[in-house]
């Protein structure tokens, strides 16, 4: 149940999707893996929207070269606390009523299940495919929705993966790109982080159309949007078996 203060706080969005949907947001448990360029706007908007429980995962400390896009951090945060811990402090100022948990160590094959077992949705805000593939495997196995985005320069891509219903990340991108120092302007990470937060809100409330099974790209340099439907790969090493089992 929403209390009187929450009804006032979320009044403008309750006008869109109603009290019941706002209660769903309050009950939701969402993990944000990576609290950098994408993770900053994701966590800010999900905090503001009243997601009841956020789990922030990032072990790195803010560096000077992060500040063009990682808008949760300022000069006073450089090389001090882990991003997840520093982010929690900022987000608590925005909304003290939600629960925020942090993990300031690496997420890896040995701990992924323990860390993410009790969340409803996983948001990929990472900068590498090695860990993305790990999240993908966990989400397919555990049947948890995974919101994926990646950005570079003025370009980005986003999709919503619903295991058993859509292509998984391996179906989409079976080969990881080389890990490089990538160019990025803050607005690209900002836009795609907000789009990821939007996908989370739509999945939880059931409001609007999500990007499940669709790969959306946007070119901020030339203001060009594209959206293509992507089908599951029948020989995907990660998810094809789960589709097979569903059919039986």
């Amino acid at each position, binding site marked *: 149940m929403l209390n009187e203060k929450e009804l006032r706080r979320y009044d403008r969005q309750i006008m869109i999707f109603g009290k019941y949907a706002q209660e769903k947001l309050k009950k939701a448990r969402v993990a944000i893996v*990576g609290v*950098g*360029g*994408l*993770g900053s706007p994701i966590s800010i908007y999900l905090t503001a929207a009243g997601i009841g429980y956020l789990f922030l995962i990032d072990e790195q400390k803010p560096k000077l070269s992060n500040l063009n896009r990682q808008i949760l951090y300022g000069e006073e945060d450089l090389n001090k606390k882990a991003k997840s811990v520093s982010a929690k402090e900022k987000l608590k100022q925005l909304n003290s009523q939600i629960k925020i948990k942090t993990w300031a160590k690496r997420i890896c094959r040995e701990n992924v299940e323990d860390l993410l077992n009790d969340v409803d949705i996983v948001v*990929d*805000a*990472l*900068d*590498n*495919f090695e860990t*993305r593939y790990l999240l993908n495997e966990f989400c397919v196995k555990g049947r948890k929705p995974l919101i994926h*985005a*990646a*950005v*570079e*320069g*003025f*370009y*980005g*891509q986003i999709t919503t993966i619903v295991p058993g219903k859509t*292509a998984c990340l391996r*179906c*989409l*991108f*079976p*080969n*990881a*790109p*080389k*890990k490089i120092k*990538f160019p*990025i302007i803050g607005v690209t*990470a900002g836009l795609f982080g907000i789009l990821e937060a939007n996908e989370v809100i739509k999945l939880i409330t059931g409001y609007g159309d999500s990007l499940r099974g669709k*790969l959306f*790209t946007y*070119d901020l*340099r*030339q203001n*060009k949007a*594209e959206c*293509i*439907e*992507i*089908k599951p*790969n029948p020989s995907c090493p990660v998810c094809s078996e789960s589709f097979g089992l569903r059919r039986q």
Partner: protein
Amino acid sequence: MKVKIKFFTFFGNLCGVDKTELNLPQGATVKEALEKIANDFPKLKKWLPQYVWVFIHGNYANLRTQLKNDDEIALFPPIAGG
């Protein structure tokens, strides 16, 4: 046979066009198509044929996938940043 190529995000900017058409021999593979594209658009040589995500009518394709007349091939540069 003829196939249609669509370039996504910065591939389009590098090529100066969003789409193109290719004439290929019957039975040509994705690899052969990508090599021809790299030849026609030298700025893509850094990526093709290895560093690209390829979809044909929304289905993932690898370098050995055989093409058919009128196939629509979407080429995405692999991006990983966050």
